[in-house]
């Protein structure tokens, strides 16, 4: 009986991949464990092994095919002596992609960017993933300043656990692109010490969940020392890496630390959404004389956005951006929440509600001015945050609205956050626990009394 070989999901967030190379041809006999093909995900090239014995019947997806959805039949294996099934029959079996992680949608289409006052009008735009934008930011700053170096787990030879540092080792060498052992507390301290010693380290955490092992150095050593030394001790370090929920990785790998770090005086905390902000703000972070926590999002790495083609695209830290203008209500968000807020705004526009969407971009210092100015125009506000509700950025924004924007409020400010539970693994429970555009839209209707 013929067995269908389907495009495998090779990472928690993979939805499609490139069939880079077939290592077998039709008619070959294979046994379990043989390498059949090389498949390129957005992170790596992976080998695809045979699980069953048999003869390769029809190869339905030729090598070099890009964008092959997970679950698509790529070949058929028959038992020895069996006649390979007819190609026509195979083509029909091409199944629809099995969604690996529904909330984890890498946007298939590129997103056009709202006007940004910090980007000169008429600037050429190119398309870039957030992943490439971050890499380019580091590469440009490393070319500019030889004190800048990158350290972390798998940043060099492996090319980055999430491929954010891809190609840096080749260009800058092992002196400046440094693999560390799995030793977060240690290398966070070493990076901090190197910054105190006059260098400009970029310390990558494979995820910010692991940075909990190192948080003492981020807060006690990096954030507080300048103050405690009466302004003598500089600590220009950047701690960066993915933050927040990924897809189906469970509670210990799915936390948003934005609120934690944002509560600490002495730190800069940045959490960009799109490629242009990721690049412009990472460059600014590397140049800053202050310690920066730079929170990325794994689910956004592969998304493609417009990116200004400028020689030196550096954005101001501490400035929010209005990513969609609207007069009826303000939705404040950051990181992955911005995409959902934009989706919600689109839905709401169809209902006659014009929502303004603000991307905070920097979580410390918070640009409350932009938020309050928008509130003064719309008189209604919702905060959307992929994170827990208690002691959140949302609760902070709400406090600011109460303290400084009360007279402008026509309705209570609402927050849309994740459910107040450790993030579950099961697909349905995970989906239920995380914010989405639907919930944001529902909250907006409430504050608009619709």
């Amino acid at each position, binding site marked *: 009986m013929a067995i269908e070989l389907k495009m495998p999901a090779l990472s928690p967030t993979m939805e499609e991949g490139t069939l880079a190379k077939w290592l077998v041809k039709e008619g070959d006999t294979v046994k379990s464990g043989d390498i059949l093909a090389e498949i390129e995900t957005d992170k790596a090239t992976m080998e695809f092994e045979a699980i069953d014995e048999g003869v390769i019947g029809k190869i339905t997806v030729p090598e070099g095919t890009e964008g092959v959805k997970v679950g698509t039949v790529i070949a058929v294996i028959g038992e020895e002596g069996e006649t390979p099934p007819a190609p026509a029959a195979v083509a029909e079996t091409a199944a629809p992609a099995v969604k690996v992680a529904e909330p984890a949608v890498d946007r298939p289409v590129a997103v056009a960017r709202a006007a940004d006052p910090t980007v000169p009008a008429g600037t050429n735009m190119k398309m870039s993933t957030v992943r490439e934008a971050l890499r380019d930011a580091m590469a440009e700053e490393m070319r500019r300043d030889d004190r800048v170096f990158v350290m972390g787990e798998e940043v060099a030879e492996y090319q980055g656990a999430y491929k954010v540092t891809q190609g840096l080792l080749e260009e800058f060498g092992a002196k400046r692109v440094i693999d560390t052992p799995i030793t977060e507390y*240690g*290398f966070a301290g070493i990076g901090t010490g190197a910054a105190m010693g006059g*260098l400009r380290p970029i310390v990558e955490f494979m995820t910010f969940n692991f940075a909990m092992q190192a948080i003492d*150095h981020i807060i*006690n050593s990096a954030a507080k020392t*300048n103050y*405690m030394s009466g302004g003598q001790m500089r600590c220009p370090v950047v701690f960066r890496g993915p933050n927040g929920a990924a897809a189906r990785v469970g509670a210990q790998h799915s936390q948003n630390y934005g609120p934690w770090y944002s509560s600490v005086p002495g730190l800069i905390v940045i959490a960009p959404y799109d490629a242009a902000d990721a690049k412009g703000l990472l460059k600014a972070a590397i140049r800053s004389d202050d310690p920066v926590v730079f929170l990325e999002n794994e689910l956004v790495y592969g998304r493609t956005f417009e990116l200004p083609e400028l020689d030196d695209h550096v954005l101001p830290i501490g400035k929010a951006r209005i990513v969609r203008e609207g007069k009826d209500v303000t939705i404040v968000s950051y990181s992955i929440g911005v995409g959902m807020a934009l989706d919600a705004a689109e839905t709401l526009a169809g209902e006659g509600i014009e929502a303004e969407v603000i991307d905070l971009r920097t979580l410390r210092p918070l640009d409350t001015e932009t938020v309050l100015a928008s509130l003064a125009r719309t008189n209604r506000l919702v905060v959307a945050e992929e994170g827990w509700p208690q002691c959140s950025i949302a609760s902070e924004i709400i406090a600011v609205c109460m303290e400084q924007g009360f007279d402008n409020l026509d309705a209570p400010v609402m927050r849309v956050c994740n459910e107040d539970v450790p993030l579950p693994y099961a697909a349905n429970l995970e989906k239920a626990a995380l914010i989405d555009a639907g919930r944001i839209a529902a909250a907006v209707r409430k504050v608009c009394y619709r």
Partner: protein
Amino acid sequence: MAKTPSARKPAASGEEFALRSLQDAHTAKPRYPASDDELLRFYEQMVLIRRFEEKAGQLYGLGLIGGFCHLYIGQEAVAVGLQSALDGDKDSVITGYRDHGHMLAYGIDPKVIMAELTGRGAGISHGKGGSMHMFSVDHKFYGGHGIVGAQVPLGAGLAFAHKYREHGGGCIAYFGDGASNQGQVYEAFNVAALWNLPIIFVVENNGYAMGTAVKRGSAETHFYRRGTAFRIPGMDVNGMDVLEVRAAAEVALAHVRAGKGPVLMELKTYRYRGHSMSDPAKYRSREEVQEMRDKHDPIDAAKAELIKRGISEEAIKDIDKRIRGIVAEAADFAENSPEPEMTELYTDILVESY
């Protein structure tokens, strides 16, 4: 008995070297041949630390110093002996919260240190750090860190910066026998050895982690052996003799400067006072302290040696007198300078404006 597999070589000479060679070099020449002038200077620095700390204890009792205040009395030979061997233009030092002595050993003005202890605007941290959090970037003294053990990876980071800049400097990272049981110390050991960082890890073993005697808190009480798992050579040094400390420093620095990677040096020392000012030190006997004071005091030993060398009692008394004057002046300054301006509350949080 099983035959030794032929493929397995006997312990390579490198391994022998890794563990013993520095100790052997130190044992061969245990004491630094100081000139009279050098020994006088060491004596003077140790007396400065002793008198300064005694005064700090007094000011604490008067309520002029608040919070935690950890005195260095008894351990003076360690900071003085080690730091006298450093190249002030290149090498860096970092330590924990018992940091007054290390700053004084660097020649940092006692007035600004004492004024920091009293929380005054003229303090070295503008009154915002206190006893445990003092720094002098000018002297390449990087603190003064309040979290036990944190200075060890930070020191490895300073050493990383020395190496990265290729200017030949190294770092001394001091920590105590108590901090030696923190996990991050071993993370730093591993990376420092792996990357061959120019750092001397200095364990100031004063016998007690706050109130816990070494043997009650440490499975391996020979701290100099604790780098073995990382192939870091260890040195076991008498921390109560400034010339032994200095001699050991020379051996360790030569190793580090030759690009051979980190050294772990244990200095056996003793603190006469409690862990901090609020510690009554009931966990040890009065006799134990008295024994150390009477028989092993580093200042008495240096004084005896000076006299033996023919330095007059008068000359030594002159030094003592001068130091008392300096410390009195520092205390006076610290007591009478104003508290920080209220604007200090909001400065130095961030370097840049955003």
